[in-house]
């Protein structure tokens, strides 16, 4: 499609870039002619309605298989899951902009600030924002992550075991912590009460309840765990500090999601056009794509409702990261096998077609 001096024609040609190259080669000039004939005299720009129409139908045309009603549904499934995985990846990268976790001195100071009269007795300070069994994830852990332990890759937190002198009751500690957190500028969430985990044997008090307090200040989230009877069971009061989601995560996730979705649509479209019958691997590619979608979607479909329920059950100053909503890396084996199927399908799609002619368009009819 050679450019001309007509600005309207040139703008239409640019919009036709939404269509696949083969389609443009066969139909581009015909389409531009129809668009120009439909335009009112003197107009130099496509109307918004025309623009949307060309974008929409150009993206549809990229899927090939013009007589198929299901190809659009498959393309949407593919684009959405690719977008979600890309968003998860870019949000993980953006998470690296978070400040390191509080060090021992900062944690000690925070404990003293929030619980005056209490002291941090023991402290577990991971060196990474996300840890695997409280340790930074290493290459040698990959097999464990893939084979069932992926759920142990979680956001790291500095956990301090604190004790008061003399030991106070749960209610006293709760009241003190809530008052001090508010006084020192923390946003305090309603206490979360759960059945007492230390209730055992004949000393069991059915009314005993463990209490959790969640709070956030700036980029730090705080979980304070108050056991039902700390003075009786010697169960420790713990303070956990973790980093809140950095501001860069949302824009990075949105951008990554959009890029991934567009890439997913385009790659699916390419493979779909490429494997229109009589392609020798058409059936195999369809089966591989179906398996990929099953393996990529099922972890997300399983994990997202559970995590949503978890978020509803207790306050979350820091939301779980996007990849956990997609069942990753807990079910990363599904993702890896699905990716393998997708790559095999794409490799098969590159096989030459049986017919030497061009891909299906109305121009060949």
């Amino acid at each position, binding site marked *: 499609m050679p450019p001309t001096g007509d600005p309207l024609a040139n703008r239409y040609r640019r919009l036709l870039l939404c269509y696949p190259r083969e389609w443009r080669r066969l139909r581009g000039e015909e389409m531009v002619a129809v668009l120009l004939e*439909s335009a009112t005299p003197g107009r130099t720009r496509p109307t918004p309605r025309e623009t949307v129409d060309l974008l929409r139908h150009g993206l549809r045309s990229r899927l090939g298989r013009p007589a198929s009603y299901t190809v659009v549904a498959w393309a949407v499934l593919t684009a959405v899951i690719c977008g979600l995985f890309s968003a998860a990846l870019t949000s993980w990268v953006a998470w690296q902009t978070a400040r390191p976790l509080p060090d021992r001195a900062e944690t000690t100071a925070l404990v003293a600030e929030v619980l005056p009269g209490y002291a941090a007795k023991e402290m577990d300070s991971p060196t990474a924002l996300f840890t695997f069994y409280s340790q930074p994830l290493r290459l040698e852990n990959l097999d464990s992550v893939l084979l069932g332990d992926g759920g142990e890759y979680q956001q790291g937190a500095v956990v301090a075991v604190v004790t008061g002198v003399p030991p106070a009751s749960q209610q006293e500690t709760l009241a003190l912590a809530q008052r001090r957190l508010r006084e020192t500028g923390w946003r305090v969430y309603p206490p979360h009460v759960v059945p007492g985990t230390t209730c055992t044997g004949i000393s069991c008090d059915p009314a005993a309840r463990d209490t959790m307090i969640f709070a956030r200040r700036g980029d730090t989230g705080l979980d304070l765990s108050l056991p039902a009877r700390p003075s009786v069971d010697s169960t420790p009061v713990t303070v956990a500090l973790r980093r809140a989601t950095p501001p860069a995560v949302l824009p990075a996730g949105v951008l990554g999601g959009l890029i991934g979705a567009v890439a997913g649509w385009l790659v699916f479209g390419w493979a779909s056009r490429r494997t229109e019958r009589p392609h020798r691997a058409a059936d195999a590619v369809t089966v591989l794509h179906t398996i990929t979608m099953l393996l990529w979607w099922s972890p997300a479909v399983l994990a997202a409702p559970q995590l949503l329920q978890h978020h509803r059950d207790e306050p979350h100053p820091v939301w779980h990261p996007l990849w956990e909503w997609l069942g990753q890396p807990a079910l990363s084996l599904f993702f890896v096998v699905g990716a393998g199927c997708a790559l095999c399908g794409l490799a098969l799609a590159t096989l030459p077609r049986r017919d030497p002619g061009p891909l299906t368009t109305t121009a060949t009819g």
Partner: protein
Amino acid sequence: MREPTFLILTALAGGSRHGYGIIQDVAAISEARVHLLPGTLYTALDRLVAQGLVAHDRDEQVEGRLRRYYRLTHQGLQALDVETARLRQLTNAAEARLRTLRPHTA
């Protein structure tokens, strides 16, 4: 069969047409109620060709612009026939019910 598809087949039943001709004919048949945009038209034409209802007829150059003409195939004629009969049956049924409801206007 969706209305734009029915209108495109109806337009081509009057003889072969190029893209802009189909758009104009559809507007005329629908009394300006349906105005097809080129993107919508060509997606429909892609589908109809793939289904074997419409075929490429000939090309012409008019004032330096390419005009590609399309025609109804035998299969397309049959599909239009079937759809017309279906719509006629529905229209007759609706008219019969309306006459029952409003006998004085029948």
